């Protein structure tokens, strides 16, 4: 036993020097190359880097400091479905930077597979916008651990903010991803948001429109009624269908605008002034 141990020790020692040299060259070299952020624990890992966190909260802060309180017309850019269209998103940013807009809504399906990498790739491009942008949750963003990643990158799935007495409500309407459980979208929360009196007009932004098959049929009427009853909403903004649509489906004078996907190279430039609005399709 002792013999084997000593023999082992000797053979180990003679090869030690050579081995460590080689080890350092091959493995050390390999590790050097890969050590810079290439280690991934899982495609659905959620360790978002600090610089890519709380995008919506930071955007709202910037909007509140950049939009003068006296400005009575707000100009917003509405787009969505950036999923797997990174080249197109770059062109979108170039085009949007030429507009005199206040901020941008990226209305869901920011990612295709719900990967942390995808959210970071999109944000790396979108951060080149001169104006702030806000992310809204889409059905693809809920794939894998997308919900956790979205919350880290953008914030809560339902949120709102007020600029110059315009209230913007960002709503999770991806009912199918919650197996139509009757709680998504959260109509009660929406009613509460529309009930406050610290704003004059409200715009609701969500990925899936209430007349889409992936919106919970049980909640369609609740959504429509909440908007009608508030008396402050005449615009509901959506994406998801990858096809432009402008419709007033419920005979209540509330217009539903659906933007195209990034792939179609078109976004909506919307002007809001009091209870009036106008929009323009911008191709890039």
């Amino acid at each position, binding site marked *: 036993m002792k013999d084997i141990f000593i*023999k082992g020790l000797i053979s180990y020692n003679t090869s030690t020097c*050579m*081995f460590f040299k080689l*080890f350092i060259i*091959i493995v050390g070299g390999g590790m050097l190359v890969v050590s810079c952020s290439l280690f991934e*624990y899982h*495609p*659905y890992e959620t360790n978002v880097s600090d610089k890519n966190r709380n995008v919506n909260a930071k955007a709202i802060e910037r909007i509140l400091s950049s939009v003068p309180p006296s400005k009575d017309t707000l100009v917003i850019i509405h787009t969505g479905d950036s999923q797997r269209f990174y080249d197109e998103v770059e062109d979108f940013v170039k085009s949007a930077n030429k507009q005199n807009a206040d901020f941008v809504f990226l209305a869901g399906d920011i990612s295709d597979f719900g990967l942390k990498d995808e959210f970071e*790739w999109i944000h790396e491009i979108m951060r080149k916008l001169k104006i702030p942008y806000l992310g809204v949750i889409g059905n693809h963003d809920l794939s*894998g651990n997308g919900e956790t990643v979205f919350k880290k990158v953008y914030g809560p799935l339902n949120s709102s903010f007020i600029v110059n007495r315009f209230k913007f409500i960002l709503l999770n309407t991806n009912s199918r991803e919650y197996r139509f459980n009757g709680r998504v979208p959260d109509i009660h929360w929406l009613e509460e948001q529309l009930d406050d009196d610290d704003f004059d007009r409200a715009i609701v932004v969500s990925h899936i429109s209430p007349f889409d098959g992936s919106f919970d049929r049980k909640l369609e009427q609740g959504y429509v009624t909440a908007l009608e009853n508030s008396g402050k909403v005449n615009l509901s903004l959506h994406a998801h269908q990858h096809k432009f649509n402008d419709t007033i489906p419920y005979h209540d004078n509330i217009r539903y605008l659906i933007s195209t996907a990034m792939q179609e190279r078109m976004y909506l430039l919307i002007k809001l002034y009091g209870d009036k609005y106008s929009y323009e399709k911008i191709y890039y």
Partner: protein
Amino acid sequence: MRLYCIILLFAFTYIKGFAQEKEPHIPRWYVPDFAAVQYAGSIGFFSIGAGYDLFKEKANVDLLFGYVPPAYAGDGAIRTMTLKFTGEVIRLQPNPTTLIHPLTIGTYFNYTFGHEYSSDLPAWYPNGYYWWSEAVRVNVFIGGNVRFITNRLQQGSKVTAYYEIGTNEIKLASYTQNVHALNIWSILHAGIGVRYHFAK
């Protein structure tokens, strides 16, 4: 899961030693040729498993169980299983106790456990709503390794240190469609690991 893997690994080691003492000349095909521990590589924070040599030790196959702690995952830890094939393409032998494979090529199939990662489209989705599976990832990689004979634990056993750089099918799909906006490095991920080859 972790405990299970560790027990499995010790069992392999024990069986191997036992088999050798009693019947040194009858190799048992089912006894693994090596045990492996890996860090990262998109299959776990760390993974542990065992495998076999193939084609006169020019290739090998691993079965690895991976674990991602909750801090890096979603609502809970991620547990995965991986079947990996590695081909050792170039072989250098600088001295009798050392082998270097500067180029390895391989592929692995990674399965993520848990109902929250669906293998196929759940019933409440229309056909073709999503085309990929959340649970199954297919990876390709290149890498390298260095292997040396050590008598420290067992006379004539070997240790391999390896690294791998690769990508999976959904990241590759993202890249091929966006070669201007995405950099090839952005879709790559890496892993490093050690294999302990039981003495024959």
